[in-house]
């Protein structure tokens, strides 16, 4: 810490008997945390002495400030409903945006509105005017205000029993911070002020790799140890590779606008011969007229099996063990359990004479390496594999969880790619497994940028 800063701090404290950290921080324009460690350092140097008391109070959050301007969301909703009549949830979302969910749930909870279902539509209906105000909440219902993120708890630090030393009265000959010059000049012989090393500042914050990236890296390592080589493919993908090459019919429900994220424009299907072979499988298997235009639409890759299909088309050597641990994108509501961007751990094995028992073998081994000793398999369905299975693993806390979907690629998928051998394939939702293994209940935490969270030693 510079002596200028220490001087500025002492000057600001002046003759005060006590001060709040927050007040001094504002006065000096130094963040509270930085100021607190500066004060500790000054205490060590004997420039100041103090005691600290901490009190819990509340402060209004950014959301609270927003509500002060806009009004409480449930009030906005009830006046909206009163004005426009009953509304569908989507309509409310259009009008109230991010606050729609809060508005609906609080209005219902408080009995100002209710929900009715009508031929598959969810409609929110007006019941009575809301009489709540933000000030009521802040003064009478702190519990609710905290729950809703209108208030947050805050620790106010007060420094008292202050004893300060005027800066110029410090013995210029007593050394606090020893320097190179002090050693050369012999000034160190004047004596050095003792430090109280039982008093510590906050722990040093070091650099750290991201826990989720490290988890993904560990998964890659496991697969590499099992003999798999990594393959990468573009995130912007034609529907051809994302769906058609995987024998998913062009009117398959998964291909609709409400399930996949689309990109403007059309892509190129490079290999026309392959395209014709795929088209033929679709027309023979599903009995419809296949469209190149549909197949050329661009999507954000929604399944990493697309990576496998590209790999199979390009690699004719045998045997093959390929993996991809990478991002996929789906159109979905974002909440604790769902995200529109998440990771899949994809794998394929190609060799002559592979069997379903081998697929179960790879999945069991993979689960074991991840730390799940118990695995159970049930039959399942995926459009591009037959037979298909779903592996369940036993988590010590969460119990049996769906974790290992896989199968043998259908001949309608492998035939056009020129693959004659069996292809064992799986696509594991690795984000969900990461959540289970880190004990996280919210998928959004995988993308957290909160440094305190990221530096937690358990992660």
């Amino acid at each position, binding site marked *: 810490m510079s002596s200028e800063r220490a001087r500025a701090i002492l000057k600001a404290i002046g003759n005060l008997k006590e001060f709040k950290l927050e007040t001094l921080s504002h006065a000096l324009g130094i*963040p509270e*945390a*930085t100021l607190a460690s500066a004060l500790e350092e000054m205490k060590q140097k004997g420039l100041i002495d103090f005691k600290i008391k901490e009190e819990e109070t509340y402060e209004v959050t950014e959301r609270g400030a927003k509500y002060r301007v806009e009004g409480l969301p449930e009030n906005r909703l009830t006046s909206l409903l009163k004005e426009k009549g009953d509304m569908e949830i989507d309509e409310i979302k259009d009008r109230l945006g991010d606050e729609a969910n809060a508005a609906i749930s609080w209005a219902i909870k408080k009995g100002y509105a209710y929900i009715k279902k009508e031929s598959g539509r969810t409609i929110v209906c007006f019941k009575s005017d809301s009489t709540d105000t933000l000030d009521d909440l802040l003064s009478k219902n702190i519990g609710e205000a905290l729950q809703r993120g209108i208030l947050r708890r805050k620790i106010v630090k007060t420094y008292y029993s202050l004893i300060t030393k005027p800066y110029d009265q410090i013995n210029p000959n007593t050394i606090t911070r020893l320097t190179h010059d002090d050693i050369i000049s012999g000034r160190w012989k004047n004596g050095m002020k003792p430090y109280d090393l039982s008093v510590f500042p906050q722990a040093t*914050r070091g*650099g750290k*790799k*991201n826990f989720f990236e490290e988890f993904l890296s560990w998964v*890659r390592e496991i*697969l*590499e140890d099992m*003999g798999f*080589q*990594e393959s*990468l493919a*573009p*995130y*912007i993908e034609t529907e051809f590779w994302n769906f058609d090459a995987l024998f998913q019919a062009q*009117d398959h*429900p998964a291909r609709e606008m*409400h399930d996949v994220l*689309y*990109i*403007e*424009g*059309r*892509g*190129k299907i490079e290999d026309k011969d392959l395209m014709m072979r795929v088209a033929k499988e679709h027309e023979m298997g599903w009995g419809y007229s296949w469209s190149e235009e549909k197949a050329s639409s661009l999507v*954000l890759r929604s399944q990493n099996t697309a990576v496998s299909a590209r790999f199979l088309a390009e690699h004719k050597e045998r045997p093959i*063990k390929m993996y991809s641990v990478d991002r996929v994108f789906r159109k*979905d509501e*974002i909440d604790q359990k769902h995200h529109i961007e998440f990771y899949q751990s994809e794998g394929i094995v190609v060799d002559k*004479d*592979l*069997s*379903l*028992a*081998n697929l*179960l*073998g*790879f*999945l069991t*081994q993979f689960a074991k390496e991840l730390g799940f000793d118990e695995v159970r*398999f*049930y*039959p*399942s*369905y995926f*459009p591009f594999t*037959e*037979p298909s*299975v779903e592996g369940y693993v036993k988590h010590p806390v969460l119990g049996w969880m769906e974790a290992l979907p896989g199968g*043998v690629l*259908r001949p309608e998928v492998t035939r056009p790619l020129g693959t004659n051998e069996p292809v064992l394939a799986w696509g594991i939702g690795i984000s969900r497994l990461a959540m289970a293994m880190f004990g996280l209940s919210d998928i959004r935490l*995988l*993308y957290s*940028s*909160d*440094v305190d969270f*990221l*530096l937690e030693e358990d992660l």
Partner: protein
Amino acid sequence: MPTNKLSLSKLLFDSGLSKKELLDALPLLKVSGEVIGDELEVEVTPDRPDLLGQKGLSKALRAYFTGSDEKLKTNIEPIKVIQDEGTFKQRGYFQGFFVNSVTLDYDDIKRLMGLQEILHRSFCRDRSKASIGIHDAEGISEIRYTVVKGDSLKFVPLGDSREMTPKEILSLTDKGTKYGSLVKDDEFLILVSNKGVMSMPPIINSAYTQVSPSTKKLFVDVEGSDARSVDLITGVMIREMSGYGTISRVMLRKPEGEVLIPQLPEKNYELSVASVSKKLGLSLTGDKVAEALSRMGHCTNLLGEKLDVFTPYYRFDVMGEVDLVEDVMMGLGLKEIVPSIPNTYTIGRRSAVTSLRDKIRERLANLGYVEISMTLLSDKNLQSTVYGKNPINVKNPVSSSYDSLREGLLPDLLQALFLNKKKRMPLKLFEVGPVITKGEGQAIQKITAAAAISDYSVSVEDIQGDLLNVAKRLRLNLNVRPKDLPFAIPGRSAVFDSGWIAEVSPEILLKFNYEFPVVAFEFTATTQFKIDIIQ
């Protein structure tokens, strides 16, 4: 995946299973079930719509436990059913059958309507590909599927008491407004009997054919624009209805001649026992394979090493050998298959791109930076605020926070700094991850690395050394030259071959509600893919 609610007690009665046996058996048939009171909510996979119904599921369970399925017996009903040429233009595929000696209680009727509804929504794609009608057929001696004009006749639609013309039904009833767009021009499809209008597919039934517990005879029709869907739904409905009475098929008179409907084709496959064994990784006898298939509803004849397999009419998912292999797997139970890893020699290897990412991540973490890892999907306003140009947009975004693809990592770093504003300074953050930029008729996918330091006071010199350190690690020759950048303080930024280093301008910082100085660098570690985009 489609779900339906079934009566638990009837399912137990029909299948002869205990509740525990039932719940244990469902996943063996790819059905997931949850008991809610006296109802069982089932979710089936898209390949097995026949398991969605009360009777279809209990038949499959019974076959699984007794070892074989009952064979469908049908009669032929001597009632005239006629399809007029006018119907060919829109929903020209028509199937229909009678069910005799039915006994239905209110719960059965509720289940049938539920099944019809769920099939309409899922497999019929909201009635566009096919639709189903279930009618009380008492006193009917002739049925005609034909086309009429919108005001040429009147009937009472189901759920109403007034007589209406087809046109009025479109505007006056819920179903009419919901499905009206499926009617083309002024041509309304009508199913009419000697007693009057039975239904107006795919919109609504008439009130007079409403099914009730006193109904003894049913007529079920399925019609639509897509032959495959019509046949599939017909198969499912026959399978289900055969649990309530005796199925009678009909001779359909079409302009080009008579044809027996529904055709109920049994598919026939020759299956090699050795091949099934090899695919499953077991050594099976012909009898064992036949037994497994029989539990799954197939009929088989064992001829030496080959099995002659007859697949029932309602199994539209079976396209070839692999589908039967899966049924053998299910018939045997997956517990019979012992996981084994083959002796396949391959070398594990990480891609060069991931290794490069790892190398940079390692170095930046060692230099004291905390790594963040954010989504590729980003907010286009944040992107253009920083880089001053528009990123690639998502056509159907979920929310404005994720409506585009990020072009660079600085916006995410600035947002992360804002979120950590109240934390102890200095903050040192980095990310190494994918970005996608716009090129000439192309999208360019790259791996980019970026790092930022923020403190009460910070100078660009504080981060220059770290950039040099990383460059040394990567054997990069930076070749730096000063250049003003849109997001940097004028005179305090520079570019090099693959990136930039700068002190971020307070104008930008304040747009992120961030009031502490930030110095940062960003560079392209590698270009991964160029994706052609034709506009």
